[in-house]
């Protein structure tokens, strides 16, 4: 069973990456100059008198800062597996709870934006690769789109669609006057707030997918197998079909490699819309030096990206016949 071997190897690689990321997460604050906990507690978070001493003790105990390094490391892992990521002073809540509440908003925005932009971008890119006239007019546009910082495009959307035209709401995930429920009113309100953040990620991403696909198609259409097929009298539709199948594979790998950039885009975009996902948590945590929240969010982002990469790797094994046969026959 070759596929099992493939799966085991991939799992191993991602496990090592995960270990590395967590270790980095643990190590970084210890490498930084100064005492982060003290800095965090003495920053202007508005602590009540006496609260600081209690928290100081809580954190020193939690992180066992007086113990030897290896013990601190083990303790860090133990608390991690108990789902304990510390306590956010900024929000006065456990970090795990905060992340649990924020994560669905990220999924709701990012997942459709990534999937749809990938589909639409590849489609537009394939047309550009085949049609020179269309290519001439659309490529500069795609390059312009791909060059835009997500958050700037988000700002343009807010300004032109939200403020100037007043068509759509642009603050938060839903109207604060509405209580979340499964009613029609809430869902439509939620969707209205969802459109602009979604569009800002979706449209910008289309550009880079289209560029990648266009180049791949041009490259594949000149490959020997397409020439051969052409010489055999294959129809243009058939040629394109085969070229497309080969061109789409690197785009699947590209999806995995682009995830990091999209996360970066989402973090900044959420701050524009004040959309209550992890991005806003990260920004607020970074600005008020709420390190536990920051580290928890970092861990969450890394785990999500790793999981997504893992899934893409598995899908890739299924759609690329070369990988599939090398593992089922070898």
């Amino acid at each position, binding site marked *: 069973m070759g596929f099992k071997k493939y799966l085991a190897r991939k799992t191993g*690689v*991602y496990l*090592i*990456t995960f270990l*590395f*990321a967590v270790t*980095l*997460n643990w190590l*970084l*604050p210890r490498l*930084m*100059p*100064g005492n*982060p906990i003290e800095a965090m507690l003495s920053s202007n978070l508005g602590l009540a008198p006496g609260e600081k001493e209690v928290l100081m003790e809580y954190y020193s105990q939690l992180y066992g800062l007086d113990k030897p390094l290896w013990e601190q490391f083990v303790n860090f892992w133990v608390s991690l597996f108990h789902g304990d990521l510390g306590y956010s002073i900024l929000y006065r809540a456990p970090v795990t709870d905060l992340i649990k509440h924020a994560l669905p908003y990220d999924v709701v925005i990012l997942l459709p934006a990534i999937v749809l932009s990938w589909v639409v971008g590849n489609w537009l890119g394939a047309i550009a690769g085949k049609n*020179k006239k269309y290519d001439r007019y659309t490529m500069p546009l795609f*390059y*312009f789109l*791909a*060059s*835009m*910082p997500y*958050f*700037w495009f988000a*700002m*343009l959307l*807010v*300004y032109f669609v*939200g*403020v*100037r035209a007043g068509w759509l709401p642009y603050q938060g995930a839903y109207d604060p006057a509405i209580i979340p429920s499964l009613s029609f009113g809430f869902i439509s309100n939620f969707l209205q707030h969802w459109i602009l953040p979604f569009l800002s990620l979706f449209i910008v991403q289309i550009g880079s997918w289209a560029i990648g696909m266009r*180049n791949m198609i*041009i*490259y594949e259409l*000149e490959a020997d197998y397409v020439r051969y097929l052409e010489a055999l009298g294959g129809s243009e539709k058939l040629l394109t079909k085969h070229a497309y199948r080969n061109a789409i594979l690197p785009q699947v790998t590209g999806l995995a*490699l682009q995830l*990091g*950039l999209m*996360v*970066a*885009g989402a*973090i*900044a975009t959420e*701050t*524009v819309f004040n959309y209550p996902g992890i991005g806003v948590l*990260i*920004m607020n*945590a*970074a*600005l008020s*030096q709420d*390190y536990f929240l*920051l*580290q928890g*969010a*970092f861990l969450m*982002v*890394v785990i999500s*990206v*790793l999981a997504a*990469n893992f899934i893409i790797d598995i899908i890739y094994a299924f759609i690329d016949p070369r990988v599939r046969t090398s593992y089922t026959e070898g």
Partner: protein
Amino acid sequence: MPRRNRMETVKIAFRNRKFQFGFGLLMFFVIFALIGPLFTNFAWDGLYYEKVGKVELASYSGRHLPPMSREEIWTYTGKKVEVLHILGTDIQGKDLYAQLVYGLRTSLWIAALAAIIGTILGVSIGFVSGYKGGWVDEILMMVVNIMLVIPAIVLLILVAAYLSARSPEIQALIIGLTGWPWVARAVRSQTLSLKNREFVSLARLAGQSDLRIIFGEIMPNMVSYVFMAGILQFSGAILSSATLDFIGLGPTTMVSLGNILQKAIAHNALQFGWWWWFIPPGLIITLIITALFFINLGMEEVFNPRLRRGGE
């Protein structure tokens, strides 16, 4: 491989339309960043400074004035000065044109520095990994693959948040330190394909040292490649630094393009419709990255004629 005269390659590049466009656009912004301050009376923070003896005293302008507005401001000593706000002012009465020019300087400087750091790191690691092979390669590539999967931006945020005083150079350093894996991977695969070519084997037979082979034989064949990787690093660095600044983790001592955008958001410039505050900085970032894209495209066509499409 017949070596083409280097100058000839440069000439071909400059004849390429895409390269011309990209290079021209980039140079426009570089020159703008250099001479832009000549057209304004304001200092980098958008304030008007007046020298009184040895100290310089700042005076503010009118608040959120639209572009090209002229006004008369009173300095500290009671003098009246007529000034022109080419791009208007922000909510604190600071000139935005001055902030934009100096912000562009900072952003270009950060990106260039980060690109140099990232490219040098990536090239050396890629070279060593590809040339040495064996367990050195295995370990280095594992680090590269790990670094590629972990989103650089969260790492940057994490590090930047721990630093209380951030200079542009520090930001460039941390961006460079997270950007190199892309270069390393590309350089490694190029090195792998070059190291078994005849001229390299010949050099090895002649008893040349590893370093001499790398710099004397392999490097010259990869200059174009490394240059292109460097340009990609540059555009990546501009984007990362703008994102960091936008989140509020930018340089604390300087104004930068992302920083202007962050202040615009923080002061609700969008809701009040002060478009001159947030459109120009973002547009400049976008155009610089577009220019870099086109430079790379042009260079790709010069070095890889297969991509050239009839007559272009």
